[in-house]
């Protein structure tokens, strides 16, 4: 009996961890494209909040969570377009403009919520979707194959992103633009267009990640529902060395640690809750500290490209 209970807890931790990892994974894969092209988007927190609100609002008004997810991506794209204009065309300092967008997203989402929704409202969001056959495997089935659609999507996007980034011409252009934009420009490539595309894609995924919180997880919206996740995403991209597999590893490490500490608390294991709550962050820092190898950031990351300028 104890064995079964132990297995139940272990699988419970995995199921919760996969669910927690989804928004981080989605947003981090998107930010990976953005940063690979050379742009820091610290505005992810604001983008996620806008996606969270519009996903929630659309679901509330239309009754369709899938439409909500779609609209959240459009909201993300619009935020991305603005960030791209500020970072690529106006060549503003990316860190500062990113923080500005975070505040814009926070303020606007809260304002729209106050104006058009009014108070705490729940929605019928995504229901878990059990994958036939795989979901029926004893023990493993419920842990891995009985989740919301966005969870599956997030994990599927890992190999898809890997393929796009490393096996397509466009992916090569993205990587080149992030390393040596001058070379791409000299050869006739369009640095600005590539960066615009990457920022918009990244923001679309961040919008979707935000909507995951409201349409799949909490099934309601509240001011500042993301509570800093957007900034953790930026750290995860660094942790993952700008590669889909690394980002997957980082998101899982963080979220599994988080899930683990929740279960530790719930089961009443004698452990100070303050330490439990910081466990995911500590685990990530420790992993970063002990990991080997130099970190090869995209060389042009954070530097606006100006044709003819030095270096």
């Amino acid at each position, binding site marked *: 009996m104890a064995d079964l209970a132990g297995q139940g807890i272990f699988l419970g931790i995995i199921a919760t961890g996969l669910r927690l990892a989804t928004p981080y994974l989605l947003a981090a894969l998107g930010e990976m494209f953005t940063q690979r092209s050379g742009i820091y988007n610290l505005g992810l927190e604001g983008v996620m909040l806008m996606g969270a609100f519009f996903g929630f609002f659309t679901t509330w008004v239309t009754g369709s969570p899938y439409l909500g997810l779609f609209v959240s991506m459009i909201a993300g794209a619009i935020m991305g377009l603005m960030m791209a204009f500020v970072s690529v065309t106006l060549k503003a300092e990316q860190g500062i403009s990113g923080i500005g967008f975070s505040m814009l997203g926070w303020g606007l989402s809260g304002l729209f919520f106050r104006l058009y929704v009014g108070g705490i409202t729940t929605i019928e969001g995504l229901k878990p979707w059990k994958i036939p056959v795989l979901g029926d495997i004893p023990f493993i089935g419920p842990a891995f194959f009985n989740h919301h659609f966005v969870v599956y999507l997030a994990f599927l996007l890992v190999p898809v992103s890997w393929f796009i980034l490393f096996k397509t011409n466009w992916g090569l252009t993205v990587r080149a633009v992030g390393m040596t934009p001058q070379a791409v420009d000299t050869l006739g490539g369009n640095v600005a267009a590539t960066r615009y595309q990457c920022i918009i894609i990244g923001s679309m995924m961040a919008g979707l990640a935000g909507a995951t919180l409201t349409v799949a997880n909490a099934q*309601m919206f509240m001011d500042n529902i993301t509570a800093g996740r957007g900034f953790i995403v930026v750290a995860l991209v660094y942790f993952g060395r700008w590669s889909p597999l690394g980002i997957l590893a980082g998101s899982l490490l963080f979220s599994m640690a988080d899930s683990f500490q929740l279960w530790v608390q719930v089961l009443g294991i004698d452990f100070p*809750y303050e330490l439990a709550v910081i466990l995911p962050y500590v685990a990530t820092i420790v992993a970063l500290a002990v990991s080997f190898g130099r970190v090869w950031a995209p060389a042009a990351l954070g530097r606006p490209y100006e044709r003819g300028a030095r270096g």
Partner: protein
Amino acid sequence: MKKFSMLTRLMMVVFLAMAILVAGCGGTEKKPEPPKAQKLKIALVLPSTIDDMAWAQSMYEAILKIQSTMGKDNLELAVSERMGRPVDAGAAIRQYATQGFDIIIAHGAQYQSVVKEIAPEFPKVTFAYGTGFQAGPNIFAYDPQAQDGAYLMGMLAAKMSKSKIVGIVGPVEAGDAVKYNKGFMQGVAAAGGDVKTRIAYTGSFNEIVKAGEIAKTHMDAGADVLSGTSQQAVGAVKAVAGKPGTYWLSVDMDQSKLAPDSVLASQTYNWEKVVTKMIELRKKGTLGGERLTLSFADGMMEIKYNEKLVGKIPQDVKDAIEKTKKDIISGALKIDVSK
């Protein structure tokens, strides 16, 4: 902009500023104003928003009720929301104090040190904060006796739990959360029947996604009656609503509208009475210095059953709760939160 010289640009900025100033001032006419009655100005500083269906909303609505009783011309209310960080709250409090507000209410346990820091600089202003008990010469501390209500909630949870496991979704181990949890556990123990209480914290007052996750984890681990404090509890309420057969016991506000089939009862505070008391004390010249408790005895705390579900509670359980409440009011039963 390179075409304009430095001087030209400076002139443009000055003209623009002057234009804005003129536009701003030009519209209003100065009429001789009739002497008006002393208008009471109250400022409210909140950690979340006025529509959080919990801690902040209940206080906000209470003051609105006072405003409608006193008349809008006699009471002006200003609100600062999203002051989750005490530093931001401090800036807002200071600003209200310099603007001549009479009573500044910092609604959150986390504001204690910032209020104590600012209050001495404005001795004619009344400051208030809660949950807290340390008052000052011009500081009121209001202290909801959450542990008393929690005791009754704990009894209710223990009696209504079929799985003999109840769960608490906590924010941070501070303020009224700690009093509530301790009272709740004692209530569960008093109800008998070997019911286990489990507590998990999110680490914040505002993390509604985490609160929902903790609720889900509690339920996965076998709990069937849950409770919890702070504005993030709405996330847990929704999670409980998603699993029929589980109940939630609310704190701060009647949350049964949110989940009519899951919220069994709510512990609510009558903030109106405590704020009215502050206004009256101030009128008589007492600007602070008192610890104002909210308890069953003075009618400032209530347990409200959800009308829709009240039939599911056995009568003997309701009777036991009523009797215990009377014992608390009379002082026969004191719930100790020092342990």
